[in-house]
């Protein structure tokens, strides 16, 4: 059977349109978080004036989330700068920023990374293909691959606790009460009141990710990205 050029192009066009129409409904790139009045939008403020670098948050996170050895979902960077006697030591607790514009969600090819209406960026290790693209896209270096599960992992604000009305483990355990967590859409929440009364900063604002973890007293010089060693390849 001979196929004319016109019929061939027509057939190809129909096939392309059919492929596009089946692809678009499955599209996982769109995301909408709750606006004020619609429901909660969770966020955190970390008051660096209170943090004294005890690492209790790192330990609590490890225990709560069963984080494997050598990997962290939340930790504290300690930086020392200056020359004696003018030296300065900063503590910078780091965790997923649960951004309003999360690049990890944008680049995930399988929909394993997604965002709840309350703003929590989730990771489904049953869907993750382990491409590590989300790790490359995150400007904060807060993602890793689990050596056993072979899928990407990250902080999820302890949603299993949140859904039971309990605070995330790191917030609950902070001795200095440096971490304040709550609903950013509720003007009466502790976190909203703190944001309204105190100037805050966020990590790497130029990345355009709109983080929802804020810091009080952040020195941007202490928050610069960490240089990786080329010898530290994932096993």
């Amino acid at each position: 059977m001979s196929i004319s050029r016109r019929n061939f192009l027509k057939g190809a066009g129909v096939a392309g349109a059919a492929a596009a129409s089946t692809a678009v409904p499955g599209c996982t790139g769109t995301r909408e978080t709750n606006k004020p009045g619609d429901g909660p939008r969770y966020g955190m403020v970390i008051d660096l004036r209170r943090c004294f670098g005890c690492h209790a948050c790192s330990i609590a996170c490890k225990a709560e989330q069963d984080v494997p050895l050598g990997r962290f979902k939340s930790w504290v960077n300690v930086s020392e700068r200056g020359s004696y006697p003018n030296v300065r030591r900063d503590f910078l607790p780091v965790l997923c920023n649960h951004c309003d514009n999360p690049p990890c969600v944008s680049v995930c090819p399988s929909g394993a990374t997604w965002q709840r209406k309350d703003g929590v960026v989730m990771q489904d290790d049953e869907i993750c293909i382990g491409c590590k693209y989300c790790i490359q896209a995150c400007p904060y270096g807060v993602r890793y691959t689990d050596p056993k599960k072979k899928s990407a992992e990250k902080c999820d604000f302890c949603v299993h606790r949140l859904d039971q009305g309990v605070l995330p483990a790191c917030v609950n355990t902070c001795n200095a009460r440096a971490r304040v967590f709550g609903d950013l859409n509720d003007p009466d929440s502790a976190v909203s009141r703190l944001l309204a009364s105190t100037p805050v900063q966020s990590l790497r604002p130029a990345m355009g990710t709109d983080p929802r973890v804020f810091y009080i007293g952040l020195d941007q010089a202490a928050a610069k990205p960490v240089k990786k060693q080329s010898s530290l390849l994932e096993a």
Partner: protein
Amino acid sequence: MIGDITYTVPHLMYWDWRIAADLFIGGVGVGAFVIAVLNSLYYKDKYPAVSKIGAVLSPILIAVGLLFLLSELGHPMRIWRTVTGFNASSPLSWGALFQTLMIIVGAIYARMWLKPGSSKAARNLVGIMGLPIALIVGANHGWLLAISPARPLWNTGPATITAMIGFATTGMAAILLLLCLKKHKAPAAKEPSAAWMIQDFRALLVGALIVQGLTFLVWYISLNYGSADAQAALAAANESYGPLFWFVGIGLGLIVPILLQLSEIIGKRDTNTMPNVPLTLLTVVLILVGGYVFRYAVVMGGQIL
């Protein structure tokens, strides 16, 4: 002592040489397809061996590239999730779709070249339809890296253009490599014009290499005189992969091939003189080795900061 020390948790490099191999080998396949189709259309099958080699190489190389990518995945058997969970904003989703399409179209095109009596018009039509797909796959390989502001070394427009032209040059080099080897195996037999093909394509190759060098220069300038993040990323990448990148990727893979072939082209203005096949062989091997090293250094160096 003036110090600036950060104590932190281990930060790992997550992508290894296999990602560079996927980008490189898949890119060579894309380039080979484009050259095969353009040769067929432009020279009107004057050099069928070029198109035939390019057409057969293309789907094989793209599939091999995909295998390297799959070997890098934590869960390669879940690759179907990229279809059910298609994410329109992810270059990897589009890459998986178009790379698969490219293998199918490339295989059909190769079959048409290998099957005796295939319609030339239908073959050219498949080739023309495959061209935009090939260009999308080529651009996707650059776009995949360039999209992320978190990686300033990759996050530039020229990175995509350099990647695309790199595919054309390495694709051309792969075809020329097989032509050179073919000539050595059967010096006077079926393809007496192989040497002349090399001569014609050599000039095109040098032109493409020069354009590639210029786009790389734009990329380098945009980093070297860019934001503080871009400058820091360039410095960090240079510290770890600089010697490999500059000496092998740029020196041996780009500058030496241009000089070797320019000397040959300028030295032999008479187009009736037989081209220096061993020299061309050396050139294309250098281009292919340099092409891989270039991509390896960029993929690895870009992850440092």
